[in-house]
């Protein structure tokens, strides 16, 4: 939990104030009983009704003050806690967005998201709900002991006799119940996962008559969860009655010694009675702290996992003194680039040069380095050897942001953010006017897609773009790239997976998009490859053949063999037609 300390910056005074408020609250609870003692001894036993009235009045004022202090404590600690949480969450998120694609390809998305959500939530729960309990009880426990000692030091010593077994018992409970709760969460998570998987895949479960098998699997998990729940409840059922039992024993001890002291005249009856109740105040924090303990443990574990992300160094970052790029001409130079994800290089000394406004196509089987090359051009990775230069600037020497703003990317499976179609196009250029967005949409035919959806460009896109066909998503992502008005453009298999009528639309959209920009196209379709000025055939991380389509088809080489398998080259049916 140490990592949290720095988020307290600027709030340390308020945090200290809250500790004082907590102390005030504890003083009100324990002090109240000391007042009751005074009322008994100096009011009731002495027969002084006036004194009794005064003390009761003071007692009520103290209780009212305690009430207010506790309300303040709960609200105040939650405010501090939430400020810390939001700082942590933002910091973590900012840090994540700076990490390179390598990190995201190595970690599962679900794992990363869990750090941002359930782990931060675990910290949040402790800070906003656990804290008031923690602070007030950590103060209350010693306060009650001190009040006992003030009331009568000899009876106060008794509390030290009962505290050790109570502490041992609490410690046992904390340990055992925490472990049991963790296991319980695992088991209920397994049950939940089973239900979620069945519901999501119900079509297949039913189609393959798997109901009985799934029912059996579920029953086993459900029973395991029930057994664990029962075990957890057993621990709770032992602990709380034990504390109650210890409380009665403590009270008996006080009565026993108290009566002796009382008869010897060194103890007032008021002190004796008050001591009984003050002892209960010693036990109460033990129970409440036991409840918070599990939360604290989970939050601690969560912080460790969060820290593992925060400790990750961003791989791609601006060099000190990196210059922002001026508007690019679009000259792109790939110079003897070598790159490896792990040990074995994926790209072997690849070199080529593109004049501003030219269009190259990369073809070849998947897994041979085409997409890796595209990512080096986007500076998602830096080359191990060689350099990628734009207008003569090594990408490592320029401000990343200023470069990427002039870069457009269209991926095979375009990702849409939740929001409207319009806001997804605007993503590339947030300050674009509505007219610009509409113009970009119209230029690539998104307006026609939008027209058949309710709300047109204001149509709400559900998460990940569900509800739109992949062709429609692709058109939107092309409009997005067009609006960004990039100087350099990378299209990664932008036209696979689409039915033919939509593809025609996309081909037209690409014509608009590519005009006047330096562009790299990774393609599987002949019709897409054809528009390139030059075709590079990539195999095993090397360029094994290059030239125009006509040149390459003229010779019996890798491209001609590949052309037969490219989508669009339909030898048998074409012959039939």
């Amino acid at each position: 939990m140490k990592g949290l300390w720095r988020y307290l910056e600027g709030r340390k005074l308020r945090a200290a104030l809250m500790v004082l408020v907590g102390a005030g609250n504890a003083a009100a609870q324990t002090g109240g009983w000391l007042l009751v003692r005074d009322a008994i001894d100096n009011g009731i036993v002495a027969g002084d009704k006036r004194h009794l009235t005064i003390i009761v009045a003071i007692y009520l004022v103290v209780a009212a003050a305690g009430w207010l202090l506790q309300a303040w404590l709960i609200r105040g600690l939650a405010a501090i806690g939430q400020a810390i949480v939001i700082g942590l969450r933002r910091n973590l998120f900012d840090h994540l967005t700076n990490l390179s694609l390598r990190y995201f390809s190595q970690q599962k998305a679900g794992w990363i998201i869990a750090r941002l959500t359930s782990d931060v939530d675990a910290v949040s729960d402790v800070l906003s709900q656990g804290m008031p309990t923690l602070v007030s009880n950590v103060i209350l426990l010693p306060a009650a002991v001190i009040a006992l000692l003030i009331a009568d030091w000899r009876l106060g010593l008794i509390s030290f006799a009962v505290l050790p077994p109570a502490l041992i018992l609490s410690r046992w409970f904390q340990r055992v119940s925490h472990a049991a709760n963790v296991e319980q969460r695992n088991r209920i998570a397994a049950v939940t996962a089973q239900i979620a998987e069945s519901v999501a895949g119900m079509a297949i479960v039913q189609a393959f008559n798997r109901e009985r098998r799934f029912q059996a699997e579920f029953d086993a998990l459900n029973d395991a969860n029930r057994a664990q729940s029962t075990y957890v409840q057993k621990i709770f059922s032992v602990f709380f009655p034990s504390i109650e039992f210890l409380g009665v024993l403590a009270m008996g001890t006080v009565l026993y010694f108290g009566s002796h002291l009382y008869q010897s005249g060194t103890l007032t009856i008021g002190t004796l009675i008050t001591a009984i109740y003050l002892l209960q105040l010693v036990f109460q924090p033990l129970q409440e702290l036991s409840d918070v303990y599990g939360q604290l443990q989970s939050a601690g574990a969560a912080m460790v996992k969060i820290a593992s992300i925060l400790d990750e160094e961003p791989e791609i970052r601006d060099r000190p003194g990196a210059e922002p790029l001026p508007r690019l001409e679009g000259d792109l130079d790939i110079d003897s680039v070598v790159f490896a994800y792990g040990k074995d290089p994926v790209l072997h000394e690849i070199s080529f040069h593109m004049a501003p406004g030219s269009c190259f196509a990369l073809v070849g089987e998947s897994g041979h380095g085409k997409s890796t090359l595209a990512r080096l051009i986007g500076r998602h990775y830096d080359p191990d050897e060689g350099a990628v230069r734009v207008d003569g600037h090594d990408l490592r020497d320029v401000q990343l942001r200023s470069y990427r703003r002039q870069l457009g990317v269209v991926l095979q499976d375009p990702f849409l953010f939740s929001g409207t179609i319009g806001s997804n196009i605007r993503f590339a250029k947030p300050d674009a006017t509505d007219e610009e967005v509409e113009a970009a949409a119209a230029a690539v035919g998104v307006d026609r897609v939008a027209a058949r959806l309710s709300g047109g460009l204001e149509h709400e896109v559900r998460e990940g773009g569900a509800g739109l066909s992949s062709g429609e998503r692709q058109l939107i992502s092309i409009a997005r790239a067009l609006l960004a008005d990039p100087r350099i453009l990378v299209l990664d298999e932008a036209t696979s997976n689409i039915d033919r009528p939509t593809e025609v639309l996309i081909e037209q959209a690409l014509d608009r998009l590519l005009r006047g920009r330096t562009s790299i196209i990774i393609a599987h379709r002949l019709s897409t490859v054809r528009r390139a000025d030059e075709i590079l055939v990539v195999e095993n991380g090397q360029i094994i053949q290059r030239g125009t389509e006509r040149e390459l088809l003229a010779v019996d080489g890798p491209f001609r063999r590949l052309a037969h398998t490219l989508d669009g080259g339909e030898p048998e049916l074409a012959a039939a037609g």
Partner: protein
Amino acid sequence: MSTYANSVDPPDLGMLPTFRRLLHIWREQWRLGVFALTCSLLYTLISITIPILIQRAIDHSIDISRHEHRQPLWPYLAAIAGLAACRFIINFNRRFATARIGVRIEARMRELLYQAYLRYPRAFYDRHATGQVLSRATNDLYPIRYFIGWGLVQGIQSVMMIIGAGIVLALVDPQLTLYAAVSLPPIGIVAYRFGHLVSPISRQVQARKGDVTEAADEAVVGIEMVQAFGREDDVRERFGDRAQGVRSAALRQATVESQHVPGLYYLPALSIAAVVFFGGRAVIEGDLTIGNFVLFETLLLQLVWPLEAIGWILDLAQRALASAGRSFAWLEGIEPLPDPANPRHLPPGPLGVRFERVSFAYGGEVDVLRELDFVVQPGEIVAVCGSTGSGKTSLLNLLPRFYDPTSGRVLVGGVDTRDVPIAELRASVALVTQRPVLFSVPLRDNLTAGREDADWDEVLAACEAAGVDAFGPTLPDGYDTLIGERGVNLSGGQRQRVALARALVAGARVVVLDDPLSAVDTLTERRLVGRLRPALSGRTVLVATQRLSTVEIADRAVVLLDGRIVESGKPAELLRAGGPFATLFGDEVVAA
């Protein structure tokens, strides 16, 4: 067809019928229930007796100003210790028994719901979001568990405690009892109000946390887009807004807590003050002994928790009844797909498929299929083509009876699908869905899901035909590799190939493929098409597809337009004919 929609979304049950059903489930646990109630009664009696013993000890052995004889203290202390020990055992048993009732009922309700889920028709899943279906069998059960397990017994015990303590105190001093009880009703009210206010807010907090998850999910999954366009600041701002949403909701919750929780701690002070003030005066007047004064304080403090509990329980009861009402409505109101009353069996040998004047519409909507007639000969492979939304998937979904046609008949092997036992029909129709669903079990078990006793050589043959052999053996544990979130995430294309192999292994006589290779890259697809044809021979196959290359598997292609078959013939002939089929695929050929 409005009854169709209603039948998968029945209205929630009212409070009273729900309560009756809950009691019915509770009665299954009656032994534990009676045991817990007995413990409750004993617990209450002991809890009232101990303060009385303390009062006696003080008045007769400690402060003997009003008695001549000082009685020995030890018998009282011994009795108190003995009773405390008994109470410990009884309390343990009561808590454990009530908790077990709750745990068992939670498990039972979950089992009932899950059993029902497995039988519900597709229309149910079209209608209800996965999250809702899931939470009904998980989070929604907790109020039910706590109410019926802990709440019912604790409520009864609270009432016993209040009545018992009230009787004892009233016997000692009725007037003082009245004064001292002043703070007690507000404690119950504050507890109830708190529970009532805080549960919707904590649901809001959960909802806001869900928003954060969504924003995090988007940014992490779409990180390449974000970084490629240099838009990190925008997603940060968006995420920050969502995080801010959680913060405000959490602070609203803290506000409600700060308004109620201190009350629960400090309201009892009013009673203590009343006892000290009025009781103290009575002691001074000689109307009350100091021991009775202590008895009042002790019993009053013991009443605080039962009163709080009643407040919580009243609120809990409302939530439990509401969520149980929803669950029972589903359990009782939704009809699973009925098995035929007079089942007929499928004939042996290859099965033909015939659609006779079939119309179909999703609950209450316009017809997707209109009086469609379509015959597939036994052993024939037919490609179903058509643009997105033309009804291909709906047509295929009628075969395993995910839906029944709204009019007309679907015949498999000459038998109406509604007359065939569902299990038999589905064993004869293997399906590959558009979005392949694999389960979080080893690859091997995914492959044999359709036929567990399949011969491993057959499985390998299917893997070869479906192209699983290209990646299966290279997975970390080969065919024993665990698939899914906890194991290896396969790519979309790989998942489709596994789904395809699974359908082949199932050995069904009718195979339904819904765009089975859409996510497979074109080179691999080309290889697979050549291998699939022989693997499918002898079976009747319907394959929906967007790609001309997949159409090559088929003997015949049909084109679906506006819910009807508008064209049928050999793919090559259809291309030449220049009709709807040529419009769908023609450009691809021209391009070559």
